[in-house]
């Protein structure tokens, strides 16, 4: 659920629960994006990973 959903209420429960969810998903998503982009750059630049 996002803040622009009609069910959203600006209370502590929604902010804590969904804030925690997005925080975790954000770290996972950003971490994987970084790894994939860096791997692509390293591969194109023919740098071996060591």
């Amino acid at each position, binding site marked *: 659920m996002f803040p622009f959903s009609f069910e959203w209420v600006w209370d502590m429960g929604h902010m804590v629960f969904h804030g925690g969810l997005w925080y975790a998903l954000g770290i996972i998503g950003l971490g994987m994006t*970084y790894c994939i982009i860096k791997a692509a750059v390293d591969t194109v630049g023919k740098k071996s990973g*060591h």
Partner: protein
Amino acid sequence: MDSALIPRGVKRCPVWQFALGLGIVGIVLLWGVYAMLLCWFKGLNQTNMNDYYGFALWIWADLAVIALGGGAFFTGFLRYLIGKDELKNIINFAVVIGFICYSSALLILAIDVGQPLRSWFIFWHANVHSMLTEVAFCLSCYFGVLTIEYIPLILENRQINKIPFFHNLGHNMHEIMAVFAATGAFLSFFHQGSLGGVSGVLFGRPFAVREGVLIWPWTFFLFTWSAAAYGPCFTLLVTRITEVVSGKKLVKENVVQLLAKISGWMIGTYIIAKIIDTWYWAAVTAPARGFSLMDFYSGNALYGIWILIAEIVVGGVVPAAILLTNTGRRNSTARLVAITLGVIGICLNRWVMVLQTMAVPVMTFDTWQLYYPSWQEVATTILPVAYGIILVMISFRYLPIFPQETELNPIVTPDHQIEESVSDQPPLVTAQDLSPAES
């Protein structure tokens, strides 16, 4: 036939033997899948759940595998955040076991919800006053973390690792694994705790309800603590089973003993807290609601006081006593007994917190309600076990799960074969040939 996929320097059984093993376990798996399809197509009337048992065998299995899979987050926490470097030799297997446990938990939940196509409702139409919502959020996210921790292992397969992009991807994921491990520890703390919290807040169930701090009942902390304590026992137990089945020593003794010692301390401190919690509940919490201790352990055919003693003494005090002493820990038989009792103890704890809670009569006109699972429930609970065995078999055969295996089990090759193999080797081993972990 599949030798090109097997890691360098290790020996595996012939492919026919491997296929036979897969086939036997596969039959059990298919039995579980058949029962699962029955539950999906015909509905939850295939189970023996009723108005008393909304939580039944599946939820016990869920809580048990999640606790047993706690070895992944706690070993990751010790390895990446505390810096226990020796544990790098067992962390891969802990991740595989954690991945199996959490994917099994999600599979069981997918059967239990009855309408798996609506699983996304819990994210979109979230009830933010429910601890189970937090469990669903953390469980899903942590499964994502475990998948991320498992992917580099797959990328280290000999053939996949030859592809430069995958080689680099695996290396990059290893580099920032501490971030994922920290996220996993954070998520695990909350969902393990919330699973305990679900029992502790049931104020209408005097067997389960507990006092607590702020919104968290003591069971919240006890569940997290117990998962961290007993999860490594399960990792060690499955490692030992793998060693027996493969006929090889896979992890050095110092690594096993370190994890056993940490587990022993965690079990020891947990069981003290558990005894205090049980005493306070029996002496204060339950009497305040009109119950005495023996009300919960008499008047029925199954739940006697033996179950409390089995959970706390046999599954807690005894393993802690063995693992906390040098003599007990160094004796491989005593250690195996301790970790086995620990695994049984934590499963028993989850059983009483789910099923005995439902069985105990609450109202004056109530009687004990015992529950017997249907064969469909049993089959779908055995299904993840078969799936886990298959995934361990495949991972062990094709992935470098145990970094110390080659050192502990050197392959003795006749001289003429060595010469042939040397002449087959490329003249120079480049960094590209090394797995990310080796490089």
